[in-house]
């Protein structure tokens, strides 16, 4: 058994583990609460792009500190960043960590999909032989896991009683010290400026992926002449709109999320539109890059771009901690026709602009 354990450890020792602990259900890795440089780098990469999609730890049971048969069991997702935040929060504690297979998705999103759910928890308890590892029958789940886990059903099927712990793993030590009681702050989700800023790279990224298409469209529009597609007018006349397009992405994907509570109205579409109007005003007025004497260009600046900013801002509803499906549906019901209308009218105006430019009207 000892030799077997050693071989097992040598073979697949994950970087965050410091040896192993033998349990009636087989050896499990003991994890460190410290973060390596690779862990921090992994967090940064997960915050900005697709790296997160495969950032996973193997589901199963892990040990933090020197857990015994009566130690607490904390359940979590197998998104590595989630797992890392949990093990860091369990510093100097002795506990078991039960990792569910959530396909490398965080607890809340996975609970919404059902992968951090009752069935997976019931199966994982059986697969790890948890009932032999611990003598008690208590599990502590992250509170946001309650979206996917029905506590009474887990109790019925496994005998384990589920407690929903604090929303944030960092509150676990205080929660345990308080006798497994949560105060209001521990059970309420917040959305600070820092929380929002952390999320903006994933708003800017997808918007910038579409940027080349829009930019190409603008250049073709301005470069198109009766004699063909000319580079000089495309660049010199198109550039102001390219800058405005960039400002609009900043307005919708960065400024609106960052300044969310300070922009008036509750509707994200309206918030994004207001910030978009301000960025158009900045381009036309302060920067003077759009020719203010040309009524058509002026109209497009104030019609199309704020609508685009509004649309981009509306995407942020998917990342907040307080928007619901019914509200977003309502916004889209009104917003989508307005966006399509604004885009259609803007296109028509630009056609008129071109016809005028070519002296056809």
């Amino acid at each position, binding site marked *: 058994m000892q030799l077997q354990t050693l071989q097992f450890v040598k073979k697949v020792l994950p970087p965050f583990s410091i040896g192993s602990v033998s349990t009636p259900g087989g050896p499990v890795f003991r994890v460190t609460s410290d973060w390596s440089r690779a862990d921090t780098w992994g967090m940064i990469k*997960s915050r900005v*792009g*697709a790296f*997160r*999609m495969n*950032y996973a730890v193997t589901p199963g049971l892990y040990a933090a500190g020197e857990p015994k048969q009566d130690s607490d069991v904390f359940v979590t997702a197998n*998104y590595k960043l989630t797992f890392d935040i949990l093990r860091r929060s369990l510093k100097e504690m002795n506990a078991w960590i039960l990792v569910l297979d959530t396909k*490398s*998705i*965080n607890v*809340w*999103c996975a*609970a*919404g*999909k059902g992968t951090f759910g009752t069935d997976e928890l019931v199966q994982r308890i059986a697969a790890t032989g948890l009932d032999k590892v611990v003598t008690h029958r208590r599990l502590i789940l992250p*509170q*946001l896991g*309650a*979206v*996917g*886990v*029905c*506590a*009474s059903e887990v109790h019925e099927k496994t005998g384990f009683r589920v407690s*929903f712990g604090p*929303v944030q793993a960092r509150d676990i030590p205080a929660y345990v010290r308080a006798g497994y009681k*949560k105060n*209001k702050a521990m*059970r*309420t*989700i917040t*959305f600070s400026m820092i929380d929002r800023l952390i999320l903006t790279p*994933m708003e800017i*990224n*997808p918007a910038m992926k579409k940027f080349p298409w829009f930019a190409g469209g603008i250049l073709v529009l301005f470069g198109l002449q009766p004699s063909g597609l000319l580079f000089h007018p495309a660049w010199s006349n198109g550039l102001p709109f390219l800058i405005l397009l960039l400002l609009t992405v900043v307005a919708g994907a960065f400024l609106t999320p960052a300044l*969310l*509570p300070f922009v008036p109205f*509750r*509707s*994200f579409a309206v918030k994004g539109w207001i910030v978009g109007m301000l960025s158009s005003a900045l381009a036309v007025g302060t920067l003077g890059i759009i020719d203010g004497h040309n009524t058509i260009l002026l109209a497009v600046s104030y019609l199309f771009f704020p609508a685009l900013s509004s649309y981009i801002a*509306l*995407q942020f*509803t*998917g*990342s*907040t*901690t*307080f*928007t*619901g*499906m*019914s*509200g*977003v*549906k*309502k*916004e*889209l019901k009104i917003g*989508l026709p307005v966006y399509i209308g604004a885009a259609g009218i803007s296109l028509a105006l630009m056609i008129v602009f071109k016809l005028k430019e070519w002296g056809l009207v």
Partner: protein
Amino acid sequence: MKYLANVTTLKYRSEKCAGCGSCVEVCPRGVFEMQGKRAAVTDRDLCMECGACALNCEFGAIAVNSGVGCAAAIINSIINGGPPSCDCSGGASSCCG
């Protein structure tokens, strides 16, 4: 921060409440609080329809049409049919993680 007023589909029937406090324990928005032996709704507009309360109410006192409050997911469901889900067609970098 609060989202749009009067849009949540949350329905609470206090006469079915047995006072277990599960809804207070799971709601991350403080929609419920215990008033005496029963739960009471503090402010409906705080609700984001995550569905944790309804799933964990053993007495069937709570119902909510829960789902993903994400514009991209809802637009996808309009175009492709089916309920809004996080499995965006954009794949890799488009969704939650």
